[in-house]
């Protein structure tokens, strides 16, 4: 079974359903919780908090979209590719904006990852070859719990038979001592927002000069490890958001040291689909295929002319400034997803869907862009989100 708990897409889960008793082997807690959630906290079809039938909520959505001049579609970072494609078809039909989580966090890195600015790698090659992994502004032990055990640190790889004990070195760079920082061999604690100063310090170290900031001994030591590395990977996360204006300097540094980049984020797959189709990873107006920051959910919800927003399998309300998230209550907001969450709570219409990879199948994209096919393992009456999106489009 393929796990859709995060963008690691672990493919070694063993699922058994014996007379309704479910057992799952090899999953991390995050993956297990997703599978085990099929009978917990399920969303119900509703309009203005009143329970309705699934047909009623789909028909109401069609009515809203038919009468709307400006719509937006958001989310899909946790969805299967079939749902992502359906959302684009729907958006093209109504001429809406389409956006995803990368416009709020991490998009500047994903863009560089996709546009050829920096070398990338397959996670299977990381497992076989990586001898130095740097975790910069990310905490995969919390967000992608098996990344280090399955690919980058603990496993025996084809050319790394002595594993983490001798063959692999790890460095965490973060503003707080995260769970990942607790297990890496070295940890560089940054003053919040000072990533750029560290880029400069590394440049100094690598050119044989003493760094001007930080623990000079530690930085020299890390510099030596970087120079000695044969296959180095920088895993980067949204901790770099605070230095996003210096992303080119970050990419230059990765290229200078000959490392590869792997963003540790879940919105890479849908961003790639949009990038391949339209040349942009997010914030796209599907009416004229243009891109603008005004089309990001952050700005869309701040504008007065948005009439409705369709959010698919993304709890964006928990991550936006609450004054912006509250705007979901003022407009026709429609939420499609398997579970109740803050976004669903703020939405006027809720449409329950199946849990992708558990109650319905589909194709999915791993963080390194490898595609996998997920199968359903539990029968369910819930419709997959791509069927719901298709029904809405057909009904327009």
């Amino acid at each position, binding site marked *: 079974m393929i796990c859709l708990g995060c963008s690691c897409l672990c493919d070694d889960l063993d699922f058994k359903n014996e007379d309704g008793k479910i057992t799952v082997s090899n999953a991390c807690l995050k993956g297990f919780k*997703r599978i085990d959630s099929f009978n917990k906290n399920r969303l119900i079809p509703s309009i203005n908090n009143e329970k309705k039938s699934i047909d009623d909520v789909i028909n109401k959505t069609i009515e809203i979209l038919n009468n709307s001049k400006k719509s937006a579609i958001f989310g899909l970072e946790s969805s299967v590719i079939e749902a992502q494609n359906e959302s684009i078809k729907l958006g093209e039909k109504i001429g809406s904006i389409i956006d995803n989580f990368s416009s709020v966090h991490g998009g500047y890195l994903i863009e560089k990852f996709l546009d050829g600015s920096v070398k990338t790698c397959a996670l299977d090659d990381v497992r076989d070859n990586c001898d130095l992994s740097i975790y910069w502004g990310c905490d995969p032990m919390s967000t992608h719990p098996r990344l280090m055990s399955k690919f980058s640190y603990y496993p025996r790889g084809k050319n790394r038979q002595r594993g983490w004990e001798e063959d692999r070195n790890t460095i965490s760079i973060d503003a707080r001592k995260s769970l990942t920082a607790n297990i890496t061999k070295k940890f560089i604690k940054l003053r919040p927002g000072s990533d750029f100063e560290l880029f400069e310090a590394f440049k100094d170290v690598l050119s044989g000069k003493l760094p001007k900031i930080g623990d000079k001994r530690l930085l020299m030591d890390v510099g030596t490890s970087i120079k000695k590395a044969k296959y180095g990977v920088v895993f980067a996360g949204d901790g770099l958001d605070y230095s*996003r204006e210096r992303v080119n300097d970050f990419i230059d540094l990765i290229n200078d040291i000959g490392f590869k980049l792997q963003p540790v984020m879940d919105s890479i797959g849908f961003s790639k689909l949009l990038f391949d189709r339209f040349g942009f990873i997010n914030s796209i107006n599907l009416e004229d295929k243009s891109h603008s920051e005004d089309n990001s959910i952050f700005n869309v919800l701040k504008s007065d002319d948005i009439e409705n927003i369709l959010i698919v399998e993304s*709890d964006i309300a928990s*991550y936006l400034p609450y004054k912006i998230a509250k705007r979901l209550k003022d407009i026709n907001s429609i939420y499609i997803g398997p*579970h109740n969450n803050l976004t669903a709570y703020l939405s006027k219409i809720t449409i329950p869907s199946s849990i992708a990879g558990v109650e319905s199948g589909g194709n999915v994209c791993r963080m390194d862009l490898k595609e996998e096919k997920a199968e359903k393992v539990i029968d369910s009456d819930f419709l997959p989100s791509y069927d719901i999106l298709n029904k809405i489009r057909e009904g327009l």
Partner: protein
Amino acid sequence: MSDNDLIIIGYENRNVFKDDDPFDSSYTEKMAIIELAEDDMKSNDITDDENVLVYNDYGEVIVKAKKIEEGDVGIAGMPKGPWFSALLSDKTEDFYRHIHARIKKTGDHITTIESLFG
């Protein structure tokens, strides 16, 4: 920024899941917290598990204080979620800067999601 401000770093709480019910008390227990360095707790007369008001120009929430080992003075941590988001700026140029906020001990109850978004 004032000298008394804390910088608050948002982080992903590994014990909270996308499918969790945000109205369950266990969700509030895990998410409505602020991690503080021991010296910041002392200087604000706060002890572990006491409720504190966290406030800035953008909003305010009451959460539970938790002492963090190896914490840096002036730097606090909050799980990314509704309580953290209440302190975020709605201006793009400030959204990508670290949150600055002040804290104050309080006897009031933890802020509920309903009161934040009601």
